[in-house]
């Protein structure tokens, strides 16, 4: 199986072939032998032997877990306790339902960065706002978070209402 994997700004070609109980995994043409033992639904223990003759004796032990990241839609991989975000075959949308929020170009769409409650809406439709001006206050986990306009413009549409509970990603207002 061949995969294109995006990680840390690099695009790697990863080819996986099964050989008996083990796998041979080639990253951009450099093969390693990998013994993968399953720990639980998300976790593998890997013992990796580098393919080159010189390093062939060194066996690296790595615990990894792989899970869809519901926020970004990418894969959240942990290598030990270190988190690494990975995109497989250009599919960024693992584990995330499309909310039909539309395209990102043109008007600036301010969305709730986390689930919470709209405490205050500081602008009205038609108001002129400047970059970094606070426009909506969302309370989550006992803290009030001022959401600011990314850039200046006119408030075209306000969907947030004071007292309203919102999910992460909910559209709050649109600045034209």
């Amino acid at each position, binding site marked *: *199986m061949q*995969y294109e*994997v995006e990680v*840390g700004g*690099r695009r790697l070609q*990863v080819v996986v072939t*099964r050989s008996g109980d083990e*796998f041979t*995994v080639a*990253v951009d043409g450099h093969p390693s032998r990998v013994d*993968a033992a*399953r720990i639980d*639904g*998300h*976790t*593998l223990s*890997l013992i*990796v032997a580098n393919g080159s003759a010189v390093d062939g004796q060194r066996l*690296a032990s790595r615990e*990894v*877990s*792989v*899970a*869809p990241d*519901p*926020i970004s839609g990418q*894969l959240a991989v*942990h*290598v*030990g*306790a*270190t*988190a*690494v975000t990975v995109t*497989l075959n250009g*599919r960024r*949308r693992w*584990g995330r*339902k*499309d*909310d039909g929020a539309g395209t*990102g170009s043109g008007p600036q*769409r*301010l969305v709730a*960065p*986390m*689930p919470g409650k709209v*405490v205050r809406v500081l602008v009205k439709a038609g108001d002129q706002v400047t970059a*970094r001006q606070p426009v909506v*206050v969302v309370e*989550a*986990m*006992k*803290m*009030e*978070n*001022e959401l*600011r306009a*990314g850039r200046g413009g006119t408030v075209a549409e306000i969907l947030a209402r004071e007292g309203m509970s919102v999910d992460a*990603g909910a559209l709050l207002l649109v600045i034209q």
Partner: protein
Amino acid sequence: MKKILIANRGEIAVRIIRACRELGVSPVAVYSECDRTALHVRYADEAYAIGPSAPRESYLRLEALIDAARKSGADGVHPGYGFLAENEHFAAAVRDAGLTFIGPTPEAIGTMGSKTAARTAARRAGVPVVPGTEDPLAPDATASEIAAAADAIGYPLLVKAVAGGGGKGMRTVTEAADLAGAVRAARSEAGAAFGDAAVYLERRLTRPRHIEVQLLGDVHGTVLPFVERECSIQRRHQKVVEETPSLAVSPAVRSAMAAAAASVASAVGYTNAGTIEFLLDEDGRFYFLEMNTRLQVEHPITEMVTGIDLVRWQIRIARGERLDLDPERLLRPHGHAIECRIYAEDPDNNFLPSPGRIQQLRVPAGPGIRDDSGATAGLDVPIFYDPMISKLVAWAEDRPLALARMRRALGEYLVTGIKTTVPFFSWLLAQPDFQAGRFHTTYLDEVLKARNGRPFVEPSPAVEEIAAIAAALEAVMSPSTLAADAPAAHAERPNARRWRAHARAEGLR
């Protein structure tokens, strides 16, 4: 006291349950709707539902808590910290119900819980206070009256909730133009968090350290101070790392602070556990800041260097027992202890809350490590409460060894499903200024601003390649794991990424 109702949730409720067990006392839990499966419920002998998830409808409802205490036949009530821990009406309601409140008297909470009244009490005890307004701002004070009070104190200043704590209901104001907004925000946050919107103004000292003194007082008039805790590492006025002893406190300053703390507490007839907070300036002068009339989040580090179980003593004091501890021992720390508050926040995304289900959790263990947690795999971190999931504490013979041990423990701390502040702590503990103890209360906010959102952990190319191998192997071995939640349509959702980019670039608040 045979049975104690714990009027709290999460990790502190679990901590108190452990003290109850060790004393042979039966612990009783209360829970809101979303906490039905929380660890504190599972550890307790009895558990009572007290209402919907929002704090105002459950953990802040006096009657519901007293009612649960009556039903269970509990004879004591421990408030933990946060929620009603510093609410004098709750302490009085517990007493009026014929139960023992495990904490100070309602009168002492009333005096010291009001920051303005506490400042007056400290001045009367001969302890210097930070300059500020003597009384809270009147609720109907006009903008020009507030501005005049601010001008008299001078900028920069802090707007602080009279009933505040934990950095909530507090705002820094550096220029007059921001004053009205800061007062409005602080009042609103204070009203929501504490049920009291009153605020006052206080001068902000330049580059002070936040040093605090733990106290225990019994009902026979003995007040004992402990070695100080260094709590200068704060993000937006919220402590994130604490350690004891402080590198900045000499033996002479230690005894002077301990004596000042004890005299303030004695002056108000203080009983049970409490903490006096001071600001220490660069010349070694200290000022009374406020008193917390409850157990503190950072109490474990004091326990680690003195060997005293503070929660057990809270219960013993409430039973009327005498504090028969050697006062010298409490001021002579054995080794060094440090605590990191593990929050469900995404440090690489401006520390936004990261509620959700914990998929995997494996906490560090081994020599000198203590993890006080209320989290387990499979539990949801709810959006309704403080996002702290655990307090990770390391003890060792000296500070460098304690830091090395904490860094080792952070490397073992595995949490998936939600983001946590673990990577941030790994970064912080590697900073030369932190390692050298060169910091003050605004140090962290300054270095975070200077970093401008750079990721705290930048995986090496070798680690990235292992991650790529892992993702590809999972796709081969268990495609259903990855595909199970995959959506039917893979349309780009620019929104999610846009707000992240936006949050990173602009900062929330």
